[in-house]
């Protein structure tokens, strides 16, 4: 038997056949049409072109204002290409001549251009096929939307093996048939990783021997032990069977009991859910959970590779609120760091780009008020249908919150004039995840109703490590605990709640440390919900409070890790 080691991105253990996923390979619905259908097919095509054009215009402006001129020009070229008259004529002619449906005709015409580019003698021109792939994907998405779903054709449940997986790749594959994921590139905190955990798909990355794996018909993916088993015998399979079954039950069953609302010694505790997709929320039973502590709205954009308009957003937020039956839902306004903007746009041409300076969060939105206003309007309109809260990501300065509140007030008077309903008293929270705002907590607390700690970005700011590397060890760093302690104290002083919505709260050892220093409110992803709920119900706050001094005065992450691990195994197991 052969084994390959990798890095765990999402836990679980599965066995199954391999699906070799190739980026940009689209399955196109091919069928012949009748002459009577020409007009409606062309109409569909024109609409898809127009939508793609609108999106690319928006993308070009964003890239122009926030990335650089060079990339904006490349997108300008895509914008010209997407509405290229010669191409459109060729598609129309092919459709009429051979009676192929318009998606098929479009795909063939674009394929011809791609082949011609590949035939050129210059590497420089060959590489431009990346642009054509981006355009093709965008237009075909609009052609297929709600009609035929286009995705790599996975026929039977398989483990997906790929060089890399973008968030939108993951969005567009059939989750029911995705047993697990193996990639060469991708980190714990990558956005595809967050998605894989949300969908409870076991995922291992950092595998260099992708090609070798592809040659096996069946493998075992043991993400829990960061191992891939090739060449499996019946004996080995049998020895894994019970773990595989357990995981399957866990995967199908999001949560079976009510989430714990207090610790072992009866201290009240809130455990909310992190979510990013309307479908993910719809799969939840509101009777079992307490609320959604973080709804990542930018995932709506990843689904579409563009920013949806106010109405599309309104429908999505409304659906979430209605499903939640008056349980609180915290909508975090778009958090576009440069990395997330790239993830959202998911353009081949922008993939392997340099590391960008930090920016994003509410600062980015205030620089792009039209995006912020449309989103706030959508959230406010949806607030008529449930218990709505708004959260601002990556707050750096108090000023940003003040300006957002002014915009909110303007929108409220607009909505009143238009006769549209909304909830008057919506709580507004600030995410505490930058070092600069740590110096302004008392002032900030005067303007917001709650603090929410984003541990992933906070770790980046305090400890400075890349988003694609393993962050888990940072969760035990003394600087993290001291910063969180400072935030809790500022919150207590101002009388506003403080929660942790970052991944740190899903780490069983780190959770003990957080509880020890006073956290009573966390929000975790659905894959962690059951385990974390179980852990909270076993924690004795009295006992774990004794760890405070050794955590806050520790000299290293290892010291804290050792204390927390010891406590966990002595008290909770």
């Amino acid at each position: 038997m052969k084994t390959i080691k990798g890095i765990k991105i999402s836990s679980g253990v599965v066995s199954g056949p391999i699906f070799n996923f190739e980026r940009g390979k689209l399955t196109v619905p091919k069928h012949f049409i009748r002459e009577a259908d020409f007009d409606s097919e062309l109409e569909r095509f024109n609409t898809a072109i127009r939508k793609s054009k609108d999106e690319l215009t928006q993308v070009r402006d964003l890239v122009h204002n926030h990335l650089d001129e060079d990339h904006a020009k490349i997108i300008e070229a895509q914008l010209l290409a997407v509405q290229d008259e010669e191409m459109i004529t060729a598609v129309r002619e092919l459709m009429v001549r051979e009676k192929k449906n318009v998606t098929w005709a479009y795909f063939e015409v674009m394929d011809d251009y791609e082949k011609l580019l590949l035939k050129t003698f210059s590497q420089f021109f060959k590489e431009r096929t990346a642009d054509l792939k981006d355009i093709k994907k965008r237009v075909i998405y609009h052609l297929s939307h709600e009609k035929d779903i286009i995705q790599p054709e996975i026929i039977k449940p398989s483990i997906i093996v790929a060089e890399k997986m973008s968030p939108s790749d993951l969005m567009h594959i059939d989750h029911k048939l995705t047993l697990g994921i193996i990639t060469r590139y991708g980190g714990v905190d990558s956005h595809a990783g967050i998605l894989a955990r949300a969908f409870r798909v076991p995922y291992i990355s950092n595998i260099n021997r992708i090609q070798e794996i592809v040659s096996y018909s069946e493998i075992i993916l043991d993400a829990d032990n960061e191992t891939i088993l090739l060449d499996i015998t019946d004996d080995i399979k049998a020895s894994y069977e019970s773990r595989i079954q357990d995981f399957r039950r866990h995967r199908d069953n999001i949560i079976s009991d009510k989430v714990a609302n207090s610790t072992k010694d009866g201290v009240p505790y809130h455990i909310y859910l992190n979510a990013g997709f309307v479908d993910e929320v719809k799969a939840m039973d509101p009777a079992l959970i307490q609320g959604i502590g973080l709804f990542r709205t930018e995932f709506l954009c990843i689904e579409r590779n563009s920013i949806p308009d106010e109405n599309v957003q309104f429908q999505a937020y409304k659906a979430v609120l209605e499903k939640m039956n008056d349980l609180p839902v915290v909508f975090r306004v778009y958090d576009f760091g440069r990395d997330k903007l790239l993830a959202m746009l998911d353009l081949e041409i922008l993939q392997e780009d340099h590391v960008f300076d930090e920016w994003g969060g509410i600062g980015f939105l205030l620089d792009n008020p039209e995006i912020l206003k449309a989103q706030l309007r959508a959230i406010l309109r949806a607030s008529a249908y449930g218990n709505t809260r708004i959260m601002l990501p990556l707050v750096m300065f108090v000023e940003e919150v003040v300006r957002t509140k002014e915009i909110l007030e303007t929108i409220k008077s607009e909505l009143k004039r238009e006769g549209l309903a909304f909830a008057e008293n919506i709580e507004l929270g600030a995410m505490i995840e930058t070092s600069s705002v740590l110096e302004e907590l008392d002032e900030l607390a005067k303007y917001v109703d709650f603090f929410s700690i984003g541990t992933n970005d906070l770790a980046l700011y305090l400890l400075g490590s890349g988003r694609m590397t393993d962050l888990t060890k940072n969760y035990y760093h003394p600087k993290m605990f001291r910063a969180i302690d400072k935030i809790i104290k500022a919150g207590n002083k101002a009388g506003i709640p403080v929660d942790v919505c970052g991944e740190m709260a899903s780490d069983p050892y780190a959770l003990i440390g957080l509880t020890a220093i006073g956290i009573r409110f966390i929000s975790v992803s659905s894959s962690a919900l059951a385990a974390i709920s179980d852990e909270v119900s076993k924690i004795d706050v009295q006992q774990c409070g004794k760890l405070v001094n050794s955590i806050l005065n520790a000299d290293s992450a290892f010291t804290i890790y050792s204390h927390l691990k010891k406590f966990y195994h002595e008290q909770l197991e």
Partner: protein
Amino acid sequence: MVRKEIKILNKYGLHTRPATALVTLVSKFKSDVFLEYNGVKVNAKSILGLLVLAVEPGANLIVEANGVDEQEAVDNLDRLAQQKFNLE
């Protein structure tokens, strides 16, 4: 009809950015504008057509324009090519 030979001076030939500038310019004119390179003639308002021509650095192209503003279109395009499409 107006025909004129122009030279592509850009380092990588008529790649994405100069092609974008070219299409943007000629699209402003009412005339039909064509480019001929290595015996292949394409619509100069079609970026996809221009890209697959894969015009190499230093290449000579024939511009052909037909319409009310044909002379202006050709002259402007010639000037833009000489200015390396305002790039580099």
